[in-house]
């Protein structure tokens, strides 16, 4: 009886935990970049992009191009929104602002952590950071982004993909 009065549970709770690759396996560009879903939980997500030559801004300096960090923080932001939904729906990024505080360190993987800190009926608000292993408190880039909910009339790939995988 009490449970029925509570808020419905997170739609993707079954996918919370470590290394649940299903959450991004249906996104071609995420797969192409070798992204891995390191952790998913209530309203938050952690994603890794392995270091690679093709991600560099200037080959001579070994620093990853800023746009790659945009992709990481957009992706992990979207994942955090999906992990905050009580009912699955499609989402689309409205805008994303990113501050590049310093260059990433050559040769190290990129990690992105995002938290959806406010969810309204139509819009989700997200903050995200990019950092290296063990340096969550010393990010090299920070992003703020907003997402529109129920963005597309057609069911998005994620819903089909995730529903087919649900036990």
């Amino acid at each position, binding site marked *: 009886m009490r449970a029925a009065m509570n808020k419905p549970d997170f739609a993707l709770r079954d996918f919370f935990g470590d290394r649940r690759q299903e959450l991004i396996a249906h996104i071609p*560009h995420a797969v192409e970049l070798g992204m891995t879903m390191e952790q998913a939980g209530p309203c938050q997500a952690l994603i890794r992009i392995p270091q690679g030559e093709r991600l560099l801004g200037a080959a001579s300096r070994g620093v990853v191009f800023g746009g790659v960090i*945009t992709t990481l923080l957009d992706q992990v932001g979207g994942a955090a929104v999906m992990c905050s939904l009580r009912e699955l729906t499609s989402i689309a990024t409205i805008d994303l602002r990113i501050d590049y505080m310093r260059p990433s360190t050559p040769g190290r993987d990129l990690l992105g952590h995002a938290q959806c800190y406010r969810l309204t009926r139509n819009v989700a608000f997200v903050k995200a950071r990019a950092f290296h292993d063990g340096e969550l408190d010393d990010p090299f880039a920070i992003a703020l982004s907003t997402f529109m909910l129920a963005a597309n009339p*057609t069911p998005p790939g994620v819903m089909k993909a995730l529903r087919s995988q649900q036990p």
Partner: protein
Amino acid sequence: MKTARSASDLDLMVTRIPYAVYLGLRVDLDEEGVLARLPFRNDLVGNAGLPALHGGVVGAFLELTALFQLLASVRDARIPKPINFNVNFLRSAGPLECLARARVVKHGKRIANVEVVAWQGDRAKPVASGFGNFLL
């Protein structure tokens, strides 16, 4: 438009940015300035259902266009470094080539502010716009 670098200078600079080569970025130069092109590829898709380009790819394309407009405008050995970048996603970018142009709003001594717009087919229907500040 008076430019500090030629089209072939810019082509050479694209080849020095591995990520721009990976995306397949093309840079043309005309009287309006830099016209950047991003040919469509299936592995750049974020939403396979629509399909639509990954938002991050669109953002990166805007950022590259801004950078190349700056490189075309100023003859300086140093590559401008992005301080921040803002992207507005206006429409989903379908399975077509993306085009973009940038405008240097302010070119200061140390910082340049650049605006960018990207579209597909119809320039009056932008898929994304953005602006960023670069350290010179």
